[in-house]
C-alpha cells in the first residue's frame, strides 16, 4: 500500500545516467524545468518530450515505474487544470451562471498539464537515478560558494541526506505499525473523516516515538565517531567530473540552443 509511492525513490540499475556526476544531473534538471516554461510554441513541446523520453530510455528505469509516480500528484494536476479552465479570459464557448469556459482556457489547461507532467517526470528521473548520498554531495558541492556568506552549506546538506535516508526507514516503519495494528483489528480504510482521522492515532503515536528514538540513536552514533560538522572534513569519494559529464553538458547546451532557435521561428 504505502510502497506504491514511487516518487523520490532510487531505482537501482546501472545506466549511463546513473553513472553521471550528480552535479550534472542537478544542473540538467534545473535547466530542463526552466526550459519547460520558457518556450511558447508547439514545437517546443515536441522537443521537450523527445528529450525527456530519450533520457528516460537511457536511464533504463521502466516507464511504467516512472508513470506510477504521477499518481501521487494527480490532485495537483486537477487543481491547476480546473483553475486554468475556468479563469482564463478569451472566446467563450460555454456559459452557465458565473462559470465560463473559453477556448483559451481549454488550451492552457491542457498545455499546463503537459508541462507539469514533464516537470515531475524530469525531476523524479533525477531521484530515480541518483542515490540520496550522491544527490546531497552534489548539492553541497554546488552550493559551496554560499559558504562565503556564512550559509552553513555542509550542515544543510547533512540534514538533507539524513532526511532522505530516513524516508524509506519511516515508510517501512509505518507499514509495520499499520500491520501490527491491523492484526489487532484496527481499520484504516473505512468510515467517515472523523473516524478515519481518529484511526490514525494508533499509527502516529508509535511512529513519532520511533522517529525520536531513531534520531536519538543516530545523534549518539555520530557523536561517538567525533562528528563536529563540516570543518576540515574530507570525503571518501570526492566528486570529479569525467568525460561523460562533459558530454552530458554539451547535450544540455545543444538542447537549450535548439529550443531557443525554434522559439524564434
Amino acid at each position, binding site marked *: 500500500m504505502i510502497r506504491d509511492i514511487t516518487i523520490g525513490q532510487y531505482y537501482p540499475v546501472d545506466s549511463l545516467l546513473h553513472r553521471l556526476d550528480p552535479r550534472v544531473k542537478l544542473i540538467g534538471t534545473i535547466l530542463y524545468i526552466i526550459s519547460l516554461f520558457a518556450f511558447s510554441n508547439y514545437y517546443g513541446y515536441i522537443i521537450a518530450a523527445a528529450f525527456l523520453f530519450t533520457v528516460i530510455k537511457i536511464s533504463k528505469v521502466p516507464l511504467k515505474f516512472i508513470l506510477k509516480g504521477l499518481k501521487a500528484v494527480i490532485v495537483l494536476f486537477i487543481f491547476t487544470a480546473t483553475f486554468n479552465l475556468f479563469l482564463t479570459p478569451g472566446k467563450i464557448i460555454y456559459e452557465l451562471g458565473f462559470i465560463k469556459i473559453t477556448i483559451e482556457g481549454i488550451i492552457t489547461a491542457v498545455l499546463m498539464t503537459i508541462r507539469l507532467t514533464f516537470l515531475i517526470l524530469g525531476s523524479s528521473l533525477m531521484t530515480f537515478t541518483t542515490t540520496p548520498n550522491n544527490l546531497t554531495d552534489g548539492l553541497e558541492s554546488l552550493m559551496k560558494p554560499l559558504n562565503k556568506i556564512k550559509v552553513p552549506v555542509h550542515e544543510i546538506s547533512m540534514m538533507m541526506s539524513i532526511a532522505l535516508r530516513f524516508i524509506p526507514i519511516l515508510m517501512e516503519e509505518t507499514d509495520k505499525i499499520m500491520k501490527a495494528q491491523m*492484526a489487532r483489528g484496527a481499520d484504516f480504510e473505512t468510515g467517515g473523516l472523523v473516524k478515519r482521522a481518529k484511526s490514525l492515532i494508533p499509527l502516529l503515536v*508509535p511512529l513519532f516515538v520511533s522517529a525520536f528514538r531513531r534520531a536519538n540513536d543516530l545523534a549518539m552514533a555520530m557523536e561517538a565517531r567525533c562528528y563536529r560538522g563540516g570543518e576540515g572534513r574530507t570525503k571518501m569519494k570526492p566528486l570529479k567530473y569525467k568525460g561523460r559529464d562533459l558530454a552530458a553538458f554539451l547535450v544540455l547546451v545543444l538542447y537549450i540552443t535548439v529550443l531557443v532557435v525554434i522559439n524564434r521561428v
Partner: protein
Amino acid sequence: MSIIVDKLNYIYSPGTAYQKHALKDINLEITEGEFIGLIGHTGSGKSTFIQHLNGLIRGTSGSIYFNGQNIYDAGYNMKGLRSKVGLVFQYPEHQLFETNVFKDVCFGPSNQGLEALQVELRAYEALKMVGIDNSLLDASPFELSGGQKRRVAIAGVLAMKPEVLILDEPTAGLDPKGRDEILEQIAKLHKENKLTIILVSHSMEDVAKYVDRLIVMNRGEVAFNDTPRKVFAHYKELEKIGLAAPQVTYVMNELRMHGLPVSIEATTIEEAKEEILRVMKH
C-alpha cells in the same frame, strides 16, 4: 481449528528491480493444540510467511484454508480471521500508543465490537495471563521496562482471544532472564489455555525445549518439517543454511564419536544429563 497452506507463493514487488520470490510453493498443515517452532535464517521468508496466515499479505498464488475455508475467497471476513489468528510482531512494544497499559490492551477487543464491560474483562484477563501486576495497569506503557512492554503488547493480542497465537521473535533484544520468562509464559499459555502456538525464532536453543514440531525455512522454502529430534539429526545440513542445532546435540555427537554409546536424541541439557548418567551407570 486447522490451517492448511496449499502451494503458497509470494513474489515481492513483481516487475521491478526489487522483485524477489519470497515464498516458494509452501505446503503446510497446522492442527489444533500444536506448539510449532518456525525457524530460519534472516531473510528466509519466515516473517513474510506468518503475515499470510492472518491475511495481512496476500499470496501471489496458492491458497490458505482456515477451518476448511479458503481465506482468499471473495467476501471472506478478514477482520474475523485476524481476531482468530493473533499475530504478535517483532518488537511488539513499538505498537503501544495509549495513555495507560490497560487502555492499550483494550484496543484489540474494542475493535472487535464487544461491549465495554466485556472489553475490560478480556483486557484484565489477558494482562493476568502474561503476568503483569495490577499496580501497573494505570502506568504509561512508555514507562515500563523492555520486558514488561513486551508482555503488555502480547496481552494486547491475547485480549482478542485468538485460537492461534503467532509470535515473531518474541525474545529479540531481551536479556537472558527476560527471554526465559517470556518463553515460559508462552509455554504456559499453550498448556493452560490450550492455545495453538507458532513461535518464530532464529535460535534453536530457544525453541528446542518447548515445541512439538519444527518447521525450518530456507530461502522461501520449507527445508525441514518434523519433530525437533529428527530435525536436529540433520545438524550438518542445518549448518549449511546458516542455522545450528542446540549445543547439546554437538556434545552428544562428539561423545558418541569418542566411544560413549549415548543416544544423540537429547535436545535439552536436562535430557542430555540423564542420558549421560544412564550410560555411565552401566
